[in-house]
């Protein structure tokens, strides 16, 4: 290869590296930039903490109240994960049923859509009547809110098996359950894991809604109590903790997705293949 070509390749590789490094750093730059700007604006305009606390005020509140913050976060994490776990099981089972049978689909879908349209915050009082104040309203709200995206995605994955592939298998004497096992379910997995990312974040929202309506425990209650005492920095500390937990759960879901269904995204990379010969 000519020296010119070599130089070009090296330059291109360096540019690609710079670009990747920037991509990795960009989210942090944006986050810290936002907080910095926020601090600056609050100080410059002398905004009182009661209206908008500066990040430093929030940090101070978080340090001061670290124990209740931690306990309540763990409580919320617990109800979220239990509700989410139930939603995964129910969403998978019903999703398979709906995706593989038109009859079940036609019969259940309208009801499910109607149910999904109900604002969950309106259901919480009913849950309290049924289960009393405690962990159950939060768990069930998390479940109700996160179950639908899972169900829809699993059903879609199973229902959209290519008709020709179905024919290939049926012509071999495959029973419907074989087709679901060999093709439908594996095919639905990318949809399923994609839905987990959504479901885990909305489950979190569900838990916090329930905790705010029925203040018993959890980060939702902490924020309600703090705001009733006009402790706005603590409210913000709660909000930020919530956001952090949300990101964490999202990352975990994404990591699992990458580990399990790489084949669904790998086909677009394809750069590691050199044709035989």
């Amino acid at each position, binding site marked *: 290869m000519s020296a010119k070509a070599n130089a070009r390749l090296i330059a291109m590789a360096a540019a690609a590296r710079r670009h990747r490094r920037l991509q990795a750093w960009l989210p942090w730059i944006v986050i810290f930039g936002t907080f910095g700007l926020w601090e600056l604006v609050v100080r410059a305009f002398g905004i009182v903490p009661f209206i908008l606390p500066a990040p430093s005020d929030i940090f101070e509140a978080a340090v001061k109240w670290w124990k209740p913050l931690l306990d309540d976060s763990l409580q919320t994490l617990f109800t979220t994960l239990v509700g989410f776990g139930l939603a995964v099981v129910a969403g998978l089972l019903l999703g398979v049923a709906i995706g593989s049978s038109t009859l079940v689909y036609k019969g259940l879908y309208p009801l499910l859509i109607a149910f999904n349209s109900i604002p969950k915050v309106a259901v919480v009082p009913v849950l309290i009547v049924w289960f009393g104040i405690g962990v159950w309203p939060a768990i069930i709200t998390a479940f109700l809110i996160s179950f639908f995206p899972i169900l829809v995605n699993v059903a879609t994955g199973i229902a959209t098996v290519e008709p*020709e592939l179905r024919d290939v298998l049926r012509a*071999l004497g495959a029973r419907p359950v074989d087709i679901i096992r060999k093709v439908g379910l594996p095919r639905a997995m990318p949809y399923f894991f994609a839905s987990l990312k959504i479901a885990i974040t909305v489950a979190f929202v569900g838990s916090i809604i329930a905790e705010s309506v029925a203040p018993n425990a959890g980060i939702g209650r902490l924020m309600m109590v703090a705001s009733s005492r006009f402790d706005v920095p603590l409210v913000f500390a709660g909000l930020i903790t919530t956001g952090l937990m949300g990101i964490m759960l999202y990352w975990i879901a994404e990591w699992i997705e990458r580990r399990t269904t790489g084949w669904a995204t790998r086909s677009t990379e394809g750069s590691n293949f050199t044709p035989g010969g």
Partner: protein
Amino acid sequence: MSRAFVEIDNVAMRYGGVEGTLALEGCSMNVAEGEFVAVVGPSGCGKSTLMRLVSGLWPATDGNVVVAGREVDEPLSLVGMAFQNPTLLPWRRILDNVMLPLEVVPAHRARLRRERPAYEQKALDLLKLVGLEGFGAKYPYQLSGGMQQRTSLCRALIHEPPLLMLDEPFSALDVFTREDLWDVLQQVWMARKPTVILVTHDLREAAYLADRVLVMSSRPGRIIAERKVPFPRPRTMETTFLPEFTALVADLRAYIAAARRGEEVV
């Protein structure tokens, strides 16, 4: 002369109730055991429908379909199928894609676990036969379209089906890859002599591969013409330059043109 392996007698097929599309009507044909038959016809004339009826995926509206001496009323597990689209499973390696039928066909399913190495060897031999030696551990996305179609062919063959149904299997490929695959298919057929029904709209392909070419009318489809292909095997690209070959293709083209004109008149 061997007995008819596939007998299609006066078959009609209407989709979607009394007022639905009449895809086939008065369609009759026979295929002998071990024979290679190509079906050509204008697009939308019911060729794919015919394939579904023969493999038992749909029941015929009228008439009889008999395969291996048995009236077809449910999917037969003795058919291997391949389509225009390779329909491989992207999460399985090539070898596992080829072995999929073994996990499904009742006769093999029971034995697969015990005799896995033997079955795997069979799949590897097949891959070698179609020129995919060494690709068993790759994923479909790592293969070109032609290689995926070869894999699809292996999947159709792995359970040694006595009947192979190919619905325009090469029509999505470029012409060089396609002609390579003609030879692959010819080789497979000569090695194993399955009964083959190949649907195609490429008349050269039909003449290159088949013992007999059947021409279908436009919808509702039925067989309107039949030509024997006399050339000895193995056929090569030189065969396609023979005046007899060119004349045969020209004849087939004329039949199809007539069939399509029929469509315009009606």
